[in-house]
């Protein structure tokens, strides 16, 4: 009984997190990007707490707390601040239009189901149903990084991908060892900070944060 509730909750939570990731593909304002990332991280925090509760692992509460502070409070605030400064062009112009993006993301999730099949077969954890969804989120994040022209949108894509990996890790193993988990958070934070510095540099050198102007280096 408990196990089936657990497995339903984890699949539901993973679906919500994946859907929030796909929402990125049809929103066009940078403001929405920061908001979606915040909500997705909040949902991820809830997933960590749920798995910590059903899996009887108090370490996951610590990870959830750090995750909440970092990805729900700190990073979205930075994103919003940058968006206020640089977000004068409201419309993002991705390389691929919305309809095609959505269709491709559907294909990516399908691909994730194919790729994650051996994982689901191997695992006997109640959370295994969510594994393909987490893998799908990694691909959707990657897709956002590749197809967006805006530096901030690329950063959000990268963060969404990180969320996908965190979800994959917690669903598959009930959490990797806490020291590694904290190291990963530190890396995400540092990586984010250096990317943020570059957004400022790009803006002051190129007078906009569209990265398709970065095309001078050849041969």
């Amino acid at each position, binding site marked *: 009984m408990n196990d089936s509730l657990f497995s339903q909750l984890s699949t539901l939570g993973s679906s919500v997190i994946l859907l929030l990731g796909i929402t990125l593909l049809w929103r066009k304002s940078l403001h929405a990007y920061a908001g979606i990332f915040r909500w997705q991280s909040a949902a991820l925090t809830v997933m960590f707490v749920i798995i910590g509760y059903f899996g009887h692992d108090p370490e996951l509460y610590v990870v959830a707390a750090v995750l909440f502070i970092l990805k729900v409070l700190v990073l979205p605030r930075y994103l919003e601040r940058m968006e206020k400064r640089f977000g004068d062009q409201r419309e993002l112009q991705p390389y691929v239009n919305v309809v095609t993006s959505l269709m491709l993301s559907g294909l990516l999730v399908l691909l994730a189901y194919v*790729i994650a099949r*051996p*994982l689901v*077969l*191997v*695992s*006997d*954890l109640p959370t295994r149903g969510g594994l393909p969804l987490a*893998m799908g989120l*990694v691909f959707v994040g*990657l897709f956002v*990084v590749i197809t967006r022209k805006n*530096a901030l949108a*690329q950063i959000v894509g*990268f963060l969404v*991908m*990180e969320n996908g*990996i965190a979800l*994959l*890790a917690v669903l*598959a*193993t*009930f959490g*990797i*060892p*806490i*020291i*590694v988990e904290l*190291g*990963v958070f*530190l*890396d995400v934070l*540092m*990586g984010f900070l*250096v*990317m943020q*510095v*570059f957004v400022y*540099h*790009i803006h002051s*050198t*190129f007078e906009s944060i569209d*990265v398709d102007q*970065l*095309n*001078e*280096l050849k*041969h």
Partner: protein
Amino acid sequence: MTFFFLILPPLLAALIASLVRPYRALVGWIGAWLSLISLGAAFGFVAQVINGQTPTWGLKLEWLNLDEVLRADSLSALLMVCVTAVAALALFLSPGLGPPIQNPHWGELAYRPNQLRRYHVFINLFIAAMLLTVSANNVGVMWITIEATTVFSAFIIPLKLNKASIEASWKYIILCSVGIALAFVGTVLGYFDFVSLSGRAGNALNWTVLFANAHSLHPEVVRLAFVFLLIGYGTKAGIAPMHTWKPDAYGESPAPLTALMASSLFAVAMYALLRWKAVADATLGSGYTNNLFMVLGLLSLLIAALSVVLATDYKRMFAYSSIEHTGLMCLGFALGPLGTFAALLHLVNHTAAKSLMFFLVDNIEHKYRSPLIEKTPGLLKTMPWTGALFAFGLMTLIGLPPGGIFIAEFALFRAGFALKHPWLMGAALALLAVVFVSFIRHLNKMLYGTPSAEEINTERPTERFSWRIALLLINVAMLITLGLSLPAPLQTLLNQSVGIISK
């Protein structure tokens, strides 16, 4: 204990550099001398592993299981020497060690004090992160430190802010972060497979534990994990088709950082990949990973050969040469114990040769006003020492004796033909010939001729023999020694390393 002497000096140097403000030349000198302690520690590890010991260090607290978190076997010791040697060279040849610059002279650009401070903080952190990677037994820690190298180096690629350097570092950070994230997916999958078999254990991310249990892992999961790891760490190592950041980043970074990235960072990324290859081979048999390595190795060679032919900028030309050597080493690692031996020997030689080249390129860059090959004629006349060493280094890189790369490539092709891969080896040889011819063509353009007055920087004095040139002669001596003989300790070390990664 030796681990502390290995890793703490660069951390200490970074701390000093961040505390002293504004930057003074003394800070750079302290960092450079401290790096010799690391180098000594690396040789200490070599001595220990040759005697058959495997030093480890761990921490076991109640809530934190860091059992055997650091471990040095032969492969680690080999990499430690590669990293610390280039690091010491790079720190002694770093900008900011001379008196403050009035007119730009040998080896230095006119950086401002705040830029020099940033440079010395992050280059030391970068070195520390690489050293942690090669001493880490825990594959999670290995991943964290490799990601940290991306972040630290991204801070100093654009030491001079301009459009080109910003473009290069943006591409570098996005591509490498995404790539490394995929490597983490692979790490998680490996851990997942282990956990679903044997239950959760704090030290299950330790490479030794994974390797010991590799035969019982699920082949289909390991196959998937290895693809992610190959894409991830392959991005960092610059294996085609994930190599696109390399020419940009190498072309725009300060020379000591380029030297470190081209020789040590590449070797470190390859090292992480080899550790996982060993695990995957123990599960799947070696055919699967070998085929992947062969395909990507040949692709790297192909792309590099075509790009070298078209190269117009000499710094980017050496980035393509890096991709070429990456390809050759990938082929070597796919060819069983013989090939692995050749590839490791190649790795050592490449470390010496590539770091030499990027320091020389730095001299040339400051003497001439343009990075274009056709605008840098007459090297032998304007810079006799640099020109001569440049010619030697380039000929070593394309595999001419007496440089050690000749021996390594010879061993590689012998292994390939012995294992009955004539088509693969034939294709590789043909591509090498293309690289060879175009490099000689570019070298001819650069060595001879007479530069016009507006092409060279006349403010710089004519080059004379100095201690900075003398330091580069160490690399030359190493390359010639390795070309003529294989010292017994190195041979033992290489043989032991081959035993670890190739059965």
